[in-house]
């Protein structure tokens, strides 16, 4: 390690490591320099100028996010003149921003609001022309509101650098700069995969999920409907954060109780259909292996990934499993198996999904997924929306008595729980496939090689002497990297898991906004959410999907066997190339 250097911050001497920025050094020393466009996962923009500091000898202020420390450097983070400049910058942003905080969705959760408040801005000085744009409501999932945009560029960088979808760009220039898709296309017609990561990183409300809470409240009051809800594994691992508690607490029981209090008649668990997915997908994989089917097989749970596939990798469509996502399987069964079981007309069932995901809103509306002409899932709400509903209904989530999910679509194994974390689907699939193939029970079921937040992970399993090579990617950018490898070397892997969001569903586009002392998609927070799901797995006696008694019952009563005709009708689908065609730049 290189020798430490001396820097001075506000006239105090410190020893720090060389080769880092002023901001990084200051963070470790307990100086949190205000910032806006900076995000540790994204490239340095240096655009907002909020993080400026004074460096003695420099003619102008420097952006601490970009400027490297040097030996003997004298830095001031809080001088009077600097504070004034920083404050003026925030004021200038506010002057071109709708002043409707009290009716804004991000009220109380907005980084700009927090900054303005910490700067002590109490008056306006430079008011003038404000930008005026219409909201883009065309997408099922993601709303774009350029009036709220402060041009920090995080969404553009997220969309191109991490997700590599390249849907968003800054168009025009100067005061007229706007973030938009190519040709100012409506989001709904663009290459947007609806992953919602732009929402996650937006400091304000320039991107939001399409909100269905009012619609849902209204329907919950309809006495003629049977209200059924399912919730994804990752929702329980993150929803506590929306109520101010530290990441990592599993809120499953509390959430079930709260959903019943909101008025749902049945609360099912998407983890059930995660187990079911494993039965179907695992069987499909084995069939491909045994009958020389198309390999590598790629998972199909992530809806953002499915749109990405159809636009960017249409040549790989045959490689993708025909399984619907767990949410859509659950929805299909709710409107068929479950409706029959309770003897009601499926049209009278309101099927709701509480998801960590924004793309599920898009998925639920896909025509290919209709069941007997009906949508399997009628309304999708995100973790954020459901937490707001819980608050709005005055339900005390943190102190509520935990409850159990309903049958027949509520029981789940530990394998279903870890679906929410990158690598989880693969791990769950291996637990079952191994046993289906070899007839033996896999002893060491925790596959460390495909756990963790590394972008692309690889592993090998020995199936009775047959080596199965697997790979896992999370975040569409990593997925693209992995798929480019597959295009070049189709023999390299047998089975691939892809999740559209960083970290998998735990980092979904619908998860609670970062807490005041944190940043969106903070790795530490993601790891804690992941740990909550791994703990849930470990705490269960049933840890393999095929051991789930409700799943076994379902096959006995309704589906008969994996990949059966009934299964195909309700649990499988197909994909096709989609326009507009997207382009993954060759340089990555």
């Amino acid at each position, binding site marked *: 390690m290189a020798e430490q250097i001396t820097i001075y911050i506000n006239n105090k001497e410190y020893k720090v490591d060389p080769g880092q920025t002023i901001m990084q050094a200051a963070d470790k020393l307990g100086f949190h320099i205000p910032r806006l466009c900076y995000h540790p996962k994204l490239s340095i*923009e240096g655009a907002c*100028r909020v993080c400026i500091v004074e460096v003695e000898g420099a003619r102008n202020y420097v952006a601490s996010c970009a400027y490297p420390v040097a030996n003997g450097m004298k830095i001031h983070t809080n001088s009077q003149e600097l504070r004034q400049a920083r404050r003026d910058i925030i004021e200038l942003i506010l002057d071109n921003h709708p002043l409707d905080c009290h009716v804004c969705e991000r009220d109380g959760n907005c980084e700009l609001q927090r900054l303005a408040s910490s700067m002590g801005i109490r008056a306006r000085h430079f008011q003038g022309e404000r930008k005026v744009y219409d909201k883009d409501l065309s997408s099922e999932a993601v709303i774009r509101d350029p009036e709220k945009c402060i*041009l920090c560029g995080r969404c553009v960088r997220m969309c191109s650098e991490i997700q590599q979808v390249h849907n968003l760009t800054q168009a025009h220039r100067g005061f007229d700069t706007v973030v938009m898709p190519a040709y100012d296309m409506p989001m709904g017609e663009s290459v947007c995969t609806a992953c919602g990561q732009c929402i996650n990183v937006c400091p304000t409300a320039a991107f939001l999920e399409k909100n269905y809470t009012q619609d849902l409240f209204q329907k919950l009051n309809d006495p003629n409907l049977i209200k059924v809800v399912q919730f994804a594994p990752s929702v329980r691992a993150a929803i506590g954060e929306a109520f101010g508690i530290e990441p990592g607490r599993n809120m499953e029981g509390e959430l079930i109780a709260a959903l019943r209090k909101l008025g749902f008649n049945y609360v099912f668990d998407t983890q059930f259909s995660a187990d079911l997915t494993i039965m179907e997908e695992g069987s499909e994989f084995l069939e491909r292996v045994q009958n020389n089917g198309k390999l590598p097989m790629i998972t199909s749970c992530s809806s953002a990934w499915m749109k990405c596939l159809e636009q960017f990798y249409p040549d790989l469509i045959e490689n993708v499993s025909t399984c619907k996502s767990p949410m859509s399987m659950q929805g299909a069964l709710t409107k068929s198996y479950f409706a029959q079981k309770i003897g009601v007309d499926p049209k009278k069932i309101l099927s709701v999904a509480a998801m960590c995901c924004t793309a599920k809103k898009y998925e639920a509306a896909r025509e290919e997924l209709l069941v007997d002409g009906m949508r399997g899932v009628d309304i999708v709400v995100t973790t954020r929306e459901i937490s707001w509903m819980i608050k709005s209904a005055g339900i005390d989530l943190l102190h509520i008595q935990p409850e159990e999910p309903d049958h027949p679509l509520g029981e789940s194994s530990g394998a279903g729980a870890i679906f929410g974390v990158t690598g989880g689907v693969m791990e769950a699939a291996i637990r079952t496939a191994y046993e289906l193939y070899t007839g033996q029970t896999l002893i060491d079921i925790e596959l460390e090689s495909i756990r963790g937040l590394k972008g692309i992970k690889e592993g090998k399993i020995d199936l009775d002497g047959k080596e199965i090579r697997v790979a896992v990617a999370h975040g569409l950018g990593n997925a693209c990297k992995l798929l480019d490898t597959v295009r070049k070397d189709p023999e390299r892997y047998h089975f691939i898991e892809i999740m559209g969001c960083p970290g998998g569903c735990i980092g979904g586009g619908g998860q609670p906004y970062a807490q005041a002392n944190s940043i969106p998609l903070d790795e530490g927070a993601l790891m804690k959410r992941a740990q909550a799901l791994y703990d849930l797995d470990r705490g269960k006696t049933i840890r393999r999907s095929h051991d789930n008694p409700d799943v076994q019952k379902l096959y006995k009563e309704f589906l008969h066997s994996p990949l059966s005709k009934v299964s195909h009708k309700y649990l499988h689908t197909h994909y096709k190339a989609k326009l507009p065609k997207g382009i993954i730049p060759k340089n990555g």
Partner: protein
Amino acid sequence: MADLRKDNNVKEVHYKLTLCDGPTCIHNQSKQLHQVLDAEIKNRGVQNVSIHLSGCLGMCKKGPILIVNPGYTMYGNVKAADIPEIVQSHLVEGKPVARLTIIEDHLYNRFFRIFGDVDFFGKQMRITLRNCGIIDPENIDDYLSVRGYEALAKVLTNMKPQDVIAEVKKSGLRGRGGAGFPTGLKWEFTAKAVNGDKYVICNADEGDPGAFMDRGTIEGDPHTVLEGMIIGGYAIGAKKGIVYIRAEYPLAIKRLEKAMDAARQCGFLGKNILGTDFSFDIEIRLGAGAFVCGEETALIHSIEGSRGMPRPRPPFPAVSGLFGKPTLINNVETWANIPVVILDGGDWFSSIGTETSKGTKVFALAGKVRNTGMVEVPMGTTLREIVYDIGGGIPNGKKLKAIQTGGPSGGCLPEQYLDTQIDYESLAKAGSIMGSGGMIVIDEDSCMVGLAKFFIEFTQDESCGKCTPCREGTKRMLEILTRITRGEGRPGDIEKLERLGGMIKKSSLCGLGQSAPNPVLSTIKNFRAEYEEHIHQKKCRAGQCAAMLSYTIGERCVGCGACKRVCPAGAIEGARKEKHVIDAAKCIRCGQCFDVCKFNAVSKA
């Protein structure tokens, strides 16, 4: 030199005619003149005459210009009707037509000596522009005849890269793009950087409104720029050079392309230059109308095919530039100085100029001055010398109010700064900047608030929109200035401008933002009273801010009705042959009545 070239068939030329092909001369029918001249020469069967078109010679007021060599006879304001006389008398009989020659003073005719014996000529000294006007820019032989590519030969045969850098450092040459960073130091940084390929870039994205030095240089002497770049490539170890030039300069682009072709053919450019193992080639990349691309990191992004937005530095381009590789960027004028530094030596070069600023500077002199055009003066020349001795003073008996240098990044210096010397530090101390070379003379008819507004309008329009201070701040400054010029200024507006301006200067990401407030801050500093008059008395002393004007019709009115007809607001009443009256409430102050009146009966106040 001749033996070094691949192709050497120098034609024997008796009379060489150079016709200025700058835009002003074209406007004044130089094209037509060219045809007439051609026809006349053919008609009279005159032998051994060649006609060349040159780039702008910088004497726009006297255009079209025709130079006859040898003898450096220069004809000005040439009309087609004069051609037969010139051809007959000068080319046939050998007697220059005295009544058409320009012999006004030192400015116009002295620098047309071939440069070997260049020395001070009056107040001007042509180093960068040494060949502009005396050679045919489309003929490499002409460039060779003025010791062209000799510097390159010297460098490749007698100097190591580090010797070249040492020579440039010794010369004291500083970047002519505006910031004035020592060129030799920049070269040294880039030479030291190790990271695979390296690049040399010529910044010809001249965007200052009112500045056209780079265009003039490339159009008049493209090879000089190329030679400078090749030498730079050798010095830092680059194999590739790029000229980033505005798409708005088609002639300059064409000349550069032609020059590059010729240089390649002669072995000055391409593989194994002059038979050595040094290879270097140059490519042209076009800008597309973005002023901010003059900033080096924005320029790099533009060459890379992206939006021309700057990024924070460090890393500097010398370390990580084009495609992430070490990159040396200099502007046209800087490159054009390099062959001179090499041939005449750093010592000689550094003998010109002031303590901190060496050599000469080219200015595009414009505005309210008699002689407009490109002038090149040694550093240390005073503003007064440029405006009065070279520029010929202010026309129409008006008084000088200010001199604006540095374009939208610069400042306005009032009369008391006339004796300021041209150098980086003196101009900065006076409150302006050297900039890339725009120099606008302003007389009492110009409103300083309006001028400040003009410049901020420009930078606001050209702001890339990346950083908050520049994107939002210049917009607010423009709004405040707009209301002041409309007579709607409020007390405290000046202080707001100062507060915003100071913040934008210190906090912006790139040079464009950091200098955008300069025209405003310098006019506030030097002409605060004008701002105050606008705000408090709703008065514009220059009579330029329309909203504060009132038009009246005086006794001279003969009732012709011209003003009434032209008035778009129907504000003028009056019977025929009787005095007309303007209804101030209806008047929109467009000034058309004032312009149309043949009897000077309309007055504005």
